[in-house]
């Protein structure tokens, strides 16, 4: 078979056994791979009303037909489960080497079911799948865990230096073990499947790590066409400057742009501008300060990833990032103005295994509660005004659930609610709002509010479409981009590189070369729309309603940035209309029929 392997590896954690299943052709044709397949399997196999941290939840690692094919920037893998943070379907994606190794091992999907009686980790080397006790890993930081797992793999398979550093590892830190609701799954030295708390799901299953080392191949249907297509794409990326821009700065060009345009999450979203960040508006400054090397994901010629280091003996290791979202949420939003402090916070979050975005939103919320006198110093054990580096202590308290950290680990609404001000948590469906201030662009507020996974920047990018400043077209672009990214996440193609308006047509092109099946841009976007609707149905069954498609009152009522508020109610009406959903945000029977989901909505009527 070209592209896919057509194989699902299922691991039953209670018994510590694994089995390989043939994948139904309908799953490949109907959902491509990655996120599409994950959403379909969750819909079919997981009761949407379960507690996400119960053994009934399933944890899926997914690749797509493009993973490992060499299509530029097609290495990402998707992790999926019902989110313990937002209670929604969730499918964060992550780069690095893990996805391609899972694929080269011969599997498209890896599904974990149930809960292991004790801590385990899993090693996969093609058809050798082992579920191994992980007592020696439990409690370890992410980088320590990966180091030990690598050594274990080296001994087990007598690996040379090349193989040792070509493998992929996905793991959790202490935060995941302690089921912090915004714990993430870490991978390959600081990458993360970050947003929806799936580290806690992994922890709830007593699963510490998964290591994959595949030695198989991915077959390509049209080798000549593919090679020529890749070369033409390279030429394009060279000529339009994307190669240079991405490799030189990655997301480090964004803090400056966000700050200069007053769009940077700052002081718990009270502002869009950080004076302290002005010195970082030239990304060369950040590069000179912390960069070690440019670090690409597997098969990515753009290499936007950056490895960094600060001169502080307490932080001896290099770290991945910080990316723009981290700089904004843990930095400007918490009042930090020193990039080295941002690196410290990033380093701690990566090692403890917590999402830097929601964690940043939690800390900034605590800071505002403290400054406003709602959160007493004795509850914290230290003062915590904006900009205080005592936040590093708080990060550890959260990860280990110590003192107030135990409450904060339950998420923003539980924490801010306890102190009487749930509105001060800047989140959507429990998930922290990412870096770009929604008041800077109306469409952004709409995208965050309607994302199927919660307040995420990854399910629709900020519109880069021509004409994006025309309010009449906000809603159109939001829908279009959401559908496109659902398809790209299924390829799995990196949406950070392949923005819909820039290279949206490439997804169908790569899929056609690799699988030998004729795909069109309209066709894949239509599959994206089906996936989006299916996810919405899952969320509705999980209890999500129109009232959850909301923004914090600070965003809709208080003109903080550019003297504007987000007119969400009006945008939502238009959005539901364009999606052909009813006024409560439920997909209509006609719409479901059109996208090929005739039966899926039946029990919701």
């Amino acid at each position, binding site marked *: 078979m070209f592209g896919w392997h057509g194989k699902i590896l299922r691991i039953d954690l209670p018994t510590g056994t694994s089995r390989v299943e043939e994948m139904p052709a309908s799953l490949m044709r109907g959902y491509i791979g990655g996120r599409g397949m994950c959403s379909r399997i969750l819909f079919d196999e997981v009761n949407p009303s379960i507690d996400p941290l119960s053994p009934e939840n399933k944890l899926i690692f997914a690749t797509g037909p493009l993973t*490992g*094919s*060499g299509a*530029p920037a097609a290495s990402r893998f998707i992790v999926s489960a019902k989110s313990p943070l937002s209670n929604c379907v969730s499918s964060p994606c992550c780069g690095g080497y893990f996805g391609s190794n899972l694929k*080269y091992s011969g599997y498209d999907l890896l599904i974990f079911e149930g809960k292991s009686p004790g801590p385990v980790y899993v090693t996969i080397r093609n058809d050798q799948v082992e579920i191994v006790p992980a007592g020696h890993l439990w409690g370890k930081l992410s980088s320590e865990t990966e180091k030990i797992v690598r050594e274990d793999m080296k001994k087990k398979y007598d690996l*040379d*230096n*090349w*193989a040792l*550093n*070509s493998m992929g590892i996905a793991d959790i830190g202490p935060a995941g073990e302690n089921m912090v609701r915004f714990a993430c799954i870490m991978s390959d*030295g600081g990458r993360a499947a970050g947003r929806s708390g799936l580290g806690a799901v992994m922890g709830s299953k007593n699963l510490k790590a998964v290591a994959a080392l595949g*030695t*198989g*191949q*991915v*077959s*390509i249907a049209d*080798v000549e066409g593919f*090679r020529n297509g*890749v*070369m033409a794409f*390279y030429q394009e*990326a*060279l000529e339009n400057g994307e*190669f240079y821009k991405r*490799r030189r700065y990655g997301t480090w060009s964004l803090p400056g742009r966000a700050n200069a345009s007053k769009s940077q999450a700052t002081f718990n979203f009270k502002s869009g501008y950080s004076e302290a960040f002005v010195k970082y508006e030239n990304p060369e400054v950040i590069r000179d300060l912390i960069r*070690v*090397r*440019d*670090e*690409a*994901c*597997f*098969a*990515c*010629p*753009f*290499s936007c990833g950056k*490895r960094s280091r600060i001169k502080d003996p307490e932080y001896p290791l*290099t770290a991945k990032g910080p990316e723009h979202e981290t700089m904004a949420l843990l930095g400007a939003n918490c009042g930090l103005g020193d990039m080295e402090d941002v690196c410290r916070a990033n380093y701690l979050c990566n090692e403890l295994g917590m999402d830097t975005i929601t964690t940043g939103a939690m800390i900034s919320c605590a800071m505002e509660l403290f400054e406003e006198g709602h959160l007493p110093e004795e509850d914290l054990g230290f003062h915590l005004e904006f900009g205080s580096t005592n936040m590093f202590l708080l990060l550890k308290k959260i990860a280990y659930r110590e003192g107030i950290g135990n409450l904060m680990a339950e998420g923003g609404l539980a924490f801010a609610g306890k102190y009487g001000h749930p509105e001060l948590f800047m989140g959507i469906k429990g998930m922290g709002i990412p870096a770009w201030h929604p008041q800077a662009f109306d469409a952004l507020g709409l995208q965050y509010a309607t994302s199927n996974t919660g307040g995420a920047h990854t399910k629709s990018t900020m519109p880069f479409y021509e004409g994006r400043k025309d309010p009449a077209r906000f809603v159109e672009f939001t829908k279009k981009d959401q559908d496109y990214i659902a398809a790209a996440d299924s390829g799995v193609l990196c949406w950070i590189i392949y923005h819909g308006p820039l290279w949206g047509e490439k997804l169908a092109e790569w899929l056609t070369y690799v699988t030998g099946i004729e795909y069109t841009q309209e066709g894949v976007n239509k599959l994206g729309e089906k996936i989006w609707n299916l996810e919405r149905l899952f969320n509705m069954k999980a209890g999500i309603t129109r009232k959850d498609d909301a923004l914090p009152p600070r965003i809709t009522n208080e003109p903080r940035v550019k003297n504007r508020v987000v007119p969400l109610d009006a945008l939502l009406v238009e959005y539901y209309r364009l999606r052909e959903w009813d006024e409560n945000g439920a997909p209509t029977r006609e719409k479901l029929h059109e996208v090929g989901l005739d039966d899926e909505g039946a029990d919701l009527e």
Partner: protein
Amino acid sequence: MRIKIDHKICTGCKQCEIACSLAHTGAVNPWRSRIRVFVGEEFCLPVIAGPYTEAACNSEGIRVLEGVEVDGCVLCRASCPAKSVYKEPDTGIPLKCDFCGEPPNPQCVKWCAPNALTLVEE
């Protein structure tokens, strides 16, 4: 004519391994590539498979590159009995770079976006 390697700008993306295996086997599999990128924390090191040697040596030892200790076996291009790289995984047949035929048209160089690999006349 040779392929010049600048490890300082290699990003570890391994597109060269992909391009090589695709050109030589018709499918994508880094384990069958004649170029291997040794990924490190401080830098990555692409090494191109050289001639096969029948005996392993013990003279390589540790070399220092960019202030980092590197196993000499990593820097050595030879396919030898002591190494598992630069061999077909199933048959053990040694692999050697052939510049993708005559005239030389190395695919790894074409697929190296950062230009860590360049074809030079010398």
